[in-house]
């Protein structure tokens, strides 16, 4: 047990956390992916975000205009005695989460889920992670009845960098979700090896 190494004098918790974001358009399967792979029943939490630039001159509507509540579904994977990975499904209905710095900061990487019937729904998330420099893989959730596309065709349609992995998946299948995360981690390892060594 990791807690055997817990040392109250040092004030250590024994485990350390990191996070992976699951993003994509509304209804593309983000919450299903979290449910499929999480070791706990997915949880939901809320955060109140300030809506920057919202009109505040009309006092009767201040609360509604000035802030918005964003709900987030998340799960957890204990990958070792030392490391817990949290999986956060980003809110799909609105784009307020793009302003949520705390959600994006410190993310290990991201999975952008796409549906070939509405490929453009994933573009805002792709733009966001590219802009933030957060590495991501594009995982195409193969819905029943959706035409199967070649990953390279999808890469072209989404105008992705040639290095960004594109995988087909079924988020209802545990092994499929696992393989998406494995592709992401292998991609992150490749990127880390291309970078100059960081002196810590």
């Amino acid at each position, binding site marked *: 047990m990791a807690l055997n190494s817990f040392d109250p004098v040092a004030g250590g918790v024994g485990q350390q*956390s990191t996070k992976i974001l699951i993003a994509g358009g509304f209804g593309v399967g983000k919450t299903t992916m979290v449910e499929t792979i999480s070791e706990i029943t997915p949880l939901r939490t809320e955060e*109140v975000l300030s809506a920057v630039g919202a009109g505040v001159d009309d006092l009767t509507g201040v609360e509604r205009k000035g802030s918005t509540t964003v709900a987030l579904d998340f799960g957890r*994977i204990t990958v*070792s005695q030392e490391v817990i990975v949290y999986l956060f499904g980003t809110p799909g209905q609105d784009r307020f989460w793009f302003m949520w710095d705390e959600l994006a*900061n410190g993310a290990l990487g991201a999975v952008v889920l796409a549906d070939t019937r509405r490929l453009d729904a994933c573009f805002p998330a792709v733009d966001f992670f590219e802009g933030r420099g957060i590495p991501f893989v594009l995982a195409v959730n193969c819905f029943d009845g959706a035409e199967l596309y070649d990953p390279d065709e999808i890469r072209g349609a989404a105008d992705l960098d040639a290095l960004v992995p594109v995988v087909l998946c079924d988020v209802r299948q545990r092994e499929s979700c696992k393989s998406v995360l494995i592709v992401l981690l292998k991609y992150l*390892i490749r990127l*880390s090896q291309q*970078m100059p060594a*960081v002196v810590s």
Partner: protein
Amino acid sequence: MTRSGHGQQPPGGPGAWYDDEAGPLVRPYAMTGGRTRGNEHELNMITLVLTVAAPTDGALGWERDEILRRCRTPKSVAEIAAAVDLPMTVVKVLISDLMDRGYVVSRSPVLARHLQNASFLQVVLDGIEQL
């Protein structure tokens, strides 16, 4: 205390200010004594929290007691917020209080520069492959 600011009782008694549109009678920040800050510990949504001591007098209130109970094994701020059904900003204030009183300790997430460390990434990869 009402928000009328004049200390007057509303006509019809203390309950008359509220109707269905007023929302919950106890606003979330009432539990923090009105403070929205108190996050000097720089708690993050995935900061892990562990209970290291618990008072026996039970005077901390349901939310703080529940946090101490839940954190007997390490839990993230997000998990705690979900468990007590409060926004994370509110929960961070409560956890900061508990840290100040020495009841819980916290551990920050893996630092950004370590996220690009191949041996750390390999640990995560190995763990996922063994799921």
